[in-house]
């Protein structure tokens, strides 16, 4: 499937809505195994993304992706800011030559892994991204698959990010960044529909 500026706009609008609606929930998830700010961080970032897209109306896909990336990078802070920012920046870079969503998200995932050094199983957003990206390539991404990937982080022990300080005590909690990444991809499915 191809990413267009129209699709990106729709995607981001739906993602922003989901984040706003689940802001408190995301921060609550971040409380026992983090510092309780993931919802606020993401909400701050996505409202900046929405404002930037609406006021600057970027002409092409590359500028639009770059705008999303820069808004996230400069507004979210913490760990999730540079990670989400890197994801969109990598998509922006590739978008000059490639607009296939599977290829773009592959590049994004590579960027996230490089930026944060996390691998699948470390209880981070990488767990969701690395389940979703191959499914996108195969054209079989579903809400169920996303949900399963999100839930898979619950029994994991964190190896990266703040939750890793807790060692075994991180087990039994959903990873907040995985939950927000889940919203990102369900938003994509809804935008495509």
């Amino acid at each position: 499937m191809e990413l267009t500026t129209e699709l990106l706009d729709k995607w981001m609008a739906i993602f922003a809505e989901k984040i706003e609606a689940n802001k408190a929930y995301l921060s609550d998830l971040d409380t026992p195994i983090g510092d309780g700010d993931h919802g606020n961080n993401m909400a701050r970032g996505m409202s900046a993304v929405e404002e930037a897209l609406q006021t600057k109306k970027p002409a092409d896909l590359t500028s639009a992706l770059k705008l999303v990336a820069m808004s996230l990078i400069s507004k979210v802070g913490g760990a999730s800011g540079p990670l989400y920012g890197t994801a969109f920046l990598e998509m922006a870079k590739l978008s000059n030559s490639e607009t296939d969503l599977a290829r773009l998200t592959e590049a994004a995932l590579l960027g996230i892994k490089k930026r944060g050094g996390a691998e699948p199983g470390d209880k981070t957003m990488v767990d969701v991204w690395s389940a979703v990206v191959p499914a996108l390539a195969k054209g079989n991404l579903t809400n169920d698959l996303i949900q399963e990937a999100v839930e898979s982080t619950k029994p994991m022990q964190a190896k990266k990010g703040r939750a890793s300080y807790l060692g075994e005590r991180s087990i039994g909690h959903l990873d907040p960044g995985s939950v927000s990444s889940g919203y990102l991809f369900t938003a994509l499915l809804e935008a495509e529909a």
Partner: protein
Amino acid sequence: MKKIINDPSNVVEEMVTGLAGMYPQYVERIPGTAALVRSDKDSMTGKVGLVSGGGSGHEPAHAGYVGKGMLTAAVCGQVFTSPTPDQIYEAIKAADQGKGVFLIVKNYSGDVMNFDMAKDLAAMDDIEVRSIVVDDDIAVENSLYTQGRRGVAGTVFMHKILGAAADQGASLDEIEELAKAVLPHINTIGVALSAATVPEVGKPGFVLADDEIEYGVGIHSEPGYRREKIKPSKDLAQELLSKIDESLKLSADKKYAILVNGMGATPLMEQYIFSKDVLDWLGAKGIKPVFTKAGNYMTSIDMAGISLTVMEIVDDKWLDYLNYPVKTIAW
């Protein structure tokens, strides 16, 4: 939550304005950012720039260490939240004098990634940027399979040592080498009597009973390694020092610098008493530290508690750097 603030969501903005307004001789705000750069521009000329920063709530860190002989600029993130790359990037640009810029980063995933991205941005401007990630908190097991040790109060020694070297004209290569040499010799560990309250959250990160303490708590009220009944200062000193001893193998043949650090709400009276107990414990081992300091240097908002940093002085030059005169708000 009872705090002298106006709007919980605006504390960093107001704090930075207040700080810059009270200390114009030391720092000035980089327009459009929550970053502060030295006012004394002459002191920067021809020198490597030193930039540090992190989430706010650790005052006087990091802006209190900006000035001749120490940091060139400091970036203030939201409370307990890493600053963003664009802000760090502005600080790098303000600090750069053509000799490159060195970043002192505390080991938190957010800080590491945001400073890394800022480095990438600066690279596009052909500013040479290197960095060190400080991870002095031995309360956290060091492991390849976790984020690793956190960066805490020992970071201030890093600021001081690199700042002195930079002021004396060290090159970016030399600063990097020095940072790497010093890093493994800085060990810190702390104990909390109460947790910090982030203004926007409105309640403490955790609650300790009236007679409880927690060892190994981080500077963002991250959980520690053991909770128990409050003990005399002597016993706290003994607990923290024996952990450091395990790690540094303290010996009467070596030289040490000591930093006793208050977490924000701990009076100097307690810090000095604890200092005595630390000096006594070391003295019993035949160790007389060559550099000592006690006070609020790397705080955790209004947390009550204390941390102890011990640094082995492997090279006498490091001691000279610690003693080198600076012009800052808070060193």
